[in-house]
């Protein structure tokens, strides 16, 4: 007899419980209740988001696999395909930053090699509260350390990502991990249990009482009792995962695998019922055969355990021996824990006794779907810093300096590049191995990362973008900006955007304002992704990002993957040679916090063509911090040269501060020796293109309105820019 208390402990509503009874035509056992509760949790069932996600564009000429599998897959030519996805690990990373972030990386890597792809790149998008708060500092140190620990040991290069700070992320950091893998496009594996009678095989780490109810935890906000939820956190074992990767890929190539799925959230439960549902089959498990780390675990605990580094696969009947040999070679055990059955049921036995019997489709596909109420705010917020998002989360005194016009532009520039939202991220990415696998052409710290594809003339380029502040200002327009900027970043690196993945980090879906934000963001993404021809191939939703009733910014994070057809077109943002001309290209309409998709498209194809025509030496997208900060970034020292200066005349529209630091949409800086040609071409495509200065010297000199606005030694500026994070963090 299930009590009210048990229901609320499992986060199930009365009507959901009635559905369960309706499906089973009887009362569920406690084990069955647990199974339903994780599969019908927000995290696994997408019950609040489904109705909206359906609107996303998911089809396109290059898409081989859209949403619905462990990762999306696109065709990159030469018989090759890439699988990629982004996933959040926000709640675990707040409870135990190091292990939470580490296991987040482990989870997304499993999603990739589950499909048969070898992970060749990782990125991450991070949000923290202001670093003036010691707790935020130690969360950041833990998160970055955990990502490095896992990715470095596993052997995937972490080549990019983003970090931003705002007070809404104190006590609710965001940790979104992206991974991309490559394989031959005819060697894709799916999470399907087919072939009645085929053995169901368990590989990887033993099952312990880890993270039981993790999935339901990820579906509830934090309050006073966050501490009480602590035992949920799992320990990551990247070495075990590396062995799993090699063993799984070897077994796949030997043709021993029929279907395979990682055990992520909701562990054995999720993997078995999803594989059964996708295969239109049943799955019968005998829990006594499941490798266990702790004594006398109940069926409930084994089914809901979230121990890491485990995979479930369905093998060819009769070839178990070969499979066991492959795993044994890698020092792993492969244990037969059940069989594929014809009856469509998930049947869980322990010592022969049936503990649960539920239709797979009821768990995987027939979860509740909610059309939650939406409520638009009476008016959109107007922020005094809407031109300067980088000021978000900084102190009022600093903000005033940018607003009251009392401070010289030179001092403002030094201040700007020292702020956490604009300073160098090297403290973060130098802890990541970003070179392993010897493909990294452009690593962290540029507009977009670039890796060559061995055996071809091609390179892949990728970036993550999530302008939380902009989206909070205007969810629909902010989402469009996000897509535009991500694509602009790829274009600046010489690439052509192909497809996207997304992670939607939002507050409490039971707040109508939050669901309105969610719906607006989906519509904005849909419009922009359609415009740029970058379908959404997958992603993840993280709700309940709130502490003490306070929701975070609506923070979608977009990952876009593009192709560079020829390695010679790889372009970086740093200035190359003395005397090169610096050219500013803008869309005719100047917008703040919004983007004109048609004009943006024109801008991007113009720059793409210029790069392909060999007219561009360096390209840099102007974003937060405006033209002054973008120019400074192009000056800093690189592997190939010391810091180099530039002399520039800032085209003037309004007052100096806005022109120098304002975050206007749709602008790109290029360097070239064909300035006049570029200007002529640009006029033809109705873009504003101006030669604004030249590379050279060791100072950054900006003239504005006939006056000397900035004149600073690059080395000084660069050291200010580099110092901030190392000074704040251990």
């Amino acid at each position, binding site marked *: 007899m299930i009590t009210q208390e048990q229901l609320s402990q499992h986060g199930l509503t009365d009507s959901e419980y009635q559905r369960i009874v309706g499906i089973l035509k009887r009362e569920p056992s406690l084990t069955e209740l647990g199974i339903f509760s994780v599969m019908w949790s927000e995290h696994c069932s997408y019950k609040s988001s489904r109705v909206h996600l359906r609107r996303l564009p998911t089809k396109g000429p290059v898409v081989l696999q859209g949403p619905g599998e462990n990762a999306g897959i696109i065709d990159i030519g030469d018989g090759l395909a890439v699988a990629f996805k982004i996933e959040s690990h926000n709640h675990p990373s707040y*409870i*135990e930053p190091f*292990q939470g972030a580490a296991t987040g990386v482990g989870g997304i890597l499993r999603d990739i090699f589950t499909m048969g792809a070898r992970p060749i790149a990782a990125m991450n998008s991070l949000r923290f509260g202001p670093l003036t708060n010691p707790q935020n500092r130690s969360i950041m140190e833990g998160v970055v350390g955990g990502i490095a620990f896992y990715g470095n040991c596993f052997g995937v290069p972490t080549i990019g990502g983003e970090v931003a700070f705002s007070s809404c992320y104190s006590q609710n950091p965001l940790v979104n991990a992206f991974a991309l893998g490559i394989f031959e496009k005819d060697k894709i594996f799916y999470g399907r249990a087919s072939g009645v009678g085929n053995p169901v095989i368990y590989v990887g*780490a033993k099952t*312990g*009482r*880890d993270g039981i109810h993790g999935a339901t935890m990820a579906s509830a906000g934090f309050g006073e009792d966050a501490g009480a939820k*602590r035992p949920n*956190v*799992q*320990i990551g*074992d990247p*070495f*075990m995962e590396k062995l799993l990767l090699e063993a799984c890929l070897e077994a796949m190539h030997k043709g021993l695998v029929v279907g395979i799925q990682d055990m992520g959230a909701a562990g054995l439960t999720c993997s078995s019922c999803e594989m059964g549902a996708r295969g239109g089959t049943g799955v019968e498990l005998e829990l006594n055969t499941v490798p266990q*780390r*702790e004594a006398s675990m109940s069926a409930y605990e084994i089914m809901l355990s979230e*121990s890491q580094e485990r995979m479930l696969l369905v093998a060819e009947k009769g070839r178990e021996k070969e499979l066991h040999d492959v795993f044994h070679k890698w*020092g792993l055990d492969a244990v037969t824990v059940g069989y594929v059955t014809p009856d469509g049921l998930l049947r869980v036995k322990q010592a022969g006794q049936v503990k649960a019997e539920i239709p797979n489709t009821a768990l995987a596909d027939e979860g509740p779907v909610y059309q939650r109420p939406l409520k638009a705010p009476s008016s959109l917020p107007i922020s005094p810093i809407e031109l300067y998002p980088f000021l978000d989360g900084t102190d009022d005194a600093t903000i005033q300096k940018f607003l009251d016009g009392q401070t010289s532009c030179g001092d403002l520039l030094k201040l700007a590049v020292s702020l956490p939202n604009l300073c160098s991220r090297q403290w973060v990415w130098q802890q990541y191995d970003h070179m392993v696998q010897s493909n990294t052409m452009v690593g962290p710290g540029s507009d977009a990362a670039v890796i060559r594809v061995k055996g071809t003339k091609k390179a892949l380029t990728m970036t993550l973008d999530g302008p939380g502040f902009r989206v909070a200002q205007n969810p629909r327009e902010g989402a469009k900006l996000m897509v535009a900027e991500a694509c602009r970043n790829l274009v600046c690196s010489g690439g052509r955007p192909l497809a996207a993945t997304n992670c939607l980090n939002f507050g409490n879906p039971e707040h109508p304002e939050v669901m309105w934000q969610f719906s607006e963001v989906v519509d904005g993404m849909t419009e922009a992704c359609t415009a740029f021809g970058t379908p959404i191939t997958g992603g993840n939703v993280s709700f309940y990002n709130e502490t003490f009733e306070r929701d975070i910014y609506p923070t979608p994070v977009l990952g876009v993957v593009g192709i560079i057809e020829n390695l010679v077109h790889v372009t970086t943002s740093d200035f190359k040679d003395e005397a090169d001309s610096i050219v500013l290209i803008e869309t005719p309409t100047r917008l703040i916090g919004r983007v004109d998709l048609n004009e943006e498209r024109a801008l991007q194809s113009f720059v793409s063509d210029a790069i392909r025509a060999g007219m561009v030496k360096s390209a840099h997208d102007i974003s937060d911090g405006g033209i002054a900060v973008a120019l400074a970034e192009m000056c800093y020292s690189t592997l190939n040269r010391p810091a180099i200066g530039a002399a520039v005349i800032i085209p003037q529209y309004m007052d100096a501060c806005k022109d120098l630091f304002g975050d206007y949409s749709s602008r790109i800086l290029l360097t070239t020796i064909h300035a006049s040609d570029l200007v002529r071409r640009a006029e033809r495509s109705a873009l504003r293109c101006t030669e604004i200065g030249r590379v050279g010297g060791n100072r950054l000199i900006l003239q504005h309105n006939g006056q000397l606005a900035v004149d600073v030694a690059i080395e000084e500026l660069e050291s200010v820019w580099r110092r901030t994070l190392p000074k704040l963090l251990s």
Partner: protein
Amino acid sequence: MKATVIVTLKPTVLDPQGMTIQRSVESMGLPEVADVRQGKYFDVNIADGVSPDRGKEVVQKLAKEVLTNPVIEEFRIVWEPR
């Protein structure tokens, strides 16, 4: 005044290091080793002239707030006159 702080993973928390050590010594011919769990060990020296009470207090605080991650670890203090 000297103390030793021993920090170990909570008994049910997975210890990949210990597990890996155990597995590889098994293959190198020490099958008798049934189980290894790894922890941290700290020798702490308290400055001379600090009162025993204050010293105990300090080591307690150090162990609890610096040396131990309460989410996954537990500690014990051994007072060694050594």
